[in-house]
């Protein structure tokens, strides 16, 4: 699908590309082998019970191949309360001063200036701006940000050891046990979504709460949002909520010209938002 068509508001949706990065394939092989190894172990002990305990699954099993996760933010609904930021911090033990998700406030002034702020990532929401008078403002809105789980993610491309990878279900994840903490991916992400976690010494960012969604639970931020601004879902499922939203609204992605093909879509996106 061309950019033109997308901008023109056609109803077709981005399909997962056929090409799967080498990393994910290798990883899959690894999974297969480990699964085979585990199967061997299971016959020796009662590990299967243990596994069933620690990995509750959707309807009995979670098959990454069957999903292609995406995220939709309805900018018309966000009220900038910061509940998502707090929920994410709590859920994922995000260290102080770093953010897997944050909320920005855009303030447009009559003189043409556009002011943006995000005090402490909007962890405590927003106070009215002290530096502008209400009568100077033409419009204002909030923009939640998170990892775009780019289909062609530059962060995965640059990781020298393959610790950043794309999972078969379309999420960009980091193998914390393999990352060397070089920070190259932090430089490569055009959206400021990554940071080096000072506690683990490794790269860190939004996982779209993989540990939750793979169990059929909502992401922490989606669950916390009081206004229904955040939605996650399976782009492969024609009946999913994200599909429905994208099929019925005009949307955009951030920095489309960089060719990263983000999978976080914004309904009601303004061109000033980058």
């Amino acid at each position, binding site marked *: 699908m061309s950019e033109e068509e997308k901008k023109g508001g056609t109803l077709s949706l981005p399909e997962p590309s056929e090409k799967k*990065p*080498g*990393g994910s394939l290798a990883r899959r092989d690894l999974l297969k082998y480990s699964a085979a190894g585990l199967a061997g172990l299971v016959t020796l002990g009662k590990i299967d019970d243990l596994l069933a305990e620690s990995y509750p699954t959707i309807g009995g099993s979670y098959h990454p191949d069957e999903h292609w996760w995406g995220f939709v933010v309805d900018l018309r609904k966000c009220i900038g309360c910061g509940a998502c930021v707090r929920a994410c911090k709590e859920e994922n033990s995000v260290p102080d*001063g*770093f*953010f897997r998700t*944050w909320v*920005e406030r855009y303030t447009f002034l009559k003189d043409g200036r556009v*002011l*943006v*702020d*995000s005090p*402490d*990532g909007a962890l405590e929401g927003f106070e009215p701006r002290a530096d502008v008078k209400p009568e100077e403002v033409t419009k204002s809105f909030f923009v939640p*940000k998170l990892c775009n789980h780019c289909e062609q993610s*530059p962060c*995965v*491309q*640059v*990781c*020298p*050891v*393959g*610790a950043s990878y794309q999972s078969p279900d379309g999420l960009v994840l980091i193998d914390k046990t*393999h*990352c*060397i*903490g*070089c*920070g*190259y991916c*932090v*430089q*490569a*992400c*055009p*959206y*400021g*979504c*990554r*940071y*080096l*976690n000072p506690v*683990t*010494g*490794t*790269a860190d960012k939004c996982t779209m709460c993989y540990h939750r969604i793979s169990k059929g639970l909502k992401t922490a931020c989606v669950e916390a949002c009081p206004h229904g601004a955040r939605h996650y879902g399976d782009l492969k499922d024609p009946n999913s909520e994200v599909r429905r939203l994208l099929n019925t609204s005009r949307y955009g992605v951030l920095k489309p010209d*960089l060719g990263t093909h983000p999978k976080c879509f914004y309904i009601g996106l303004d061109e000033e938002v*980058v």
Partner: protein
Amino acid sequence: MLPVVPSVIGYVFPNELHVTWTVMIVLYPYITGLVAGAFIVSSLYHIFGRESLRPIARFALVSSLAFLLFAPLPLLLHLGRPERAFNILITPSKTSAMAGFGIIYLTYLVIVVIEVWLTLREDMVHLAESRTGFARLFYRTLTLFDTTIDEKTKAFDHKVAKFLAALGIPVACFLHGYVGFLFGSIKANPWWSTPLMFVIFLLSAIVSGIAVLVFLFYFVSWLRKVPIDRACVGTLASFLWGFMIVDVTLELLEVLSIAYQQTREWEPLQFLILHKLFFTYVVVQLLLCSLVPFLFLAFNAIAKPREKLSNVLVFSSAVLLLVQVISMRWNVVIGGQLLSKSFRGYTTYVPGLWNKEGLVVAAVVFIVPFILLRFVDGVISLFPADTPLGAWWARRAAGKTPAVPAPFGT
């Protein structure tokens, strides 16, 4: 008056308030630049037959190795999980430009170690023969117990060394050009993302390599009260002049082309240059450390001043150009991180002093290769015996035999 800039201006993505790549990542390309530059100087003699560079060719080669051994140190100090550094060699990702580091580094290391050994072998054999006891064993070990020196072995050593020197040129260019590519290929960052980055890094590497050799050559000659080899520094000075012109031209071209195109990125970059980087880029890198040495070296080349004045001009140009290149590294590495990817704001970086990635550790990391050089010079002469510095070494060694002679200056 320099403008006073608040620490954060405009809107910076919250994760970008912390600058990820610190002064260690400034030092890393600086040291690899010295490696590549020093190697190129030795090749100018070994391959391109610049006879006047003979007095410094061997020293250049060993310096290159000394810097090379410590080049990965700043990287290690920077890594969040240094104990996993070998993952780069074990599981390199084929899509990553950085993954090539291990392979390129090791290839170059092997080439330089063998070339250094071959170049110094004859001297080691002679030293082993003229010593007794422990010193003899020490030098014999250095020769790997192969002490035959005749016309045949000499010709063979020379041939292999020449081959390695030739092979080393593209590898050295690659080693350093690749560092430029690491930055130039980051499309997220408009201050880095230019194909010119590869070439600029390479040329600035050569400039810094020549400059450090000029600096050391003068320094050692003055310390040992040995007359300066004018032919040698003359050649070095003209190469320094030539390479710095091309280097600075390309550096300016890069900025001028963005400025002239007036792209969307130009507005934030202009602010970056004129405010956040005004001192380190405009004042230090361009005016003080490019323009001044350019004028000095031009005057030296064209007006042919008296020896004393010429020495002052060349030496101070070398020092200024060493500062030019490190400030260029700073302005690229740190500068690129000061501009937020929101293109709406700027952060500030102040290096720590005593922490793992602080200034004190950085200074130590930078000085260690020089200390290593000093020790190597204590063991074997880094200058040919028929040059003033080589003769000084032989005199010193003769006075102290059979003990291992002390490093220079003592």
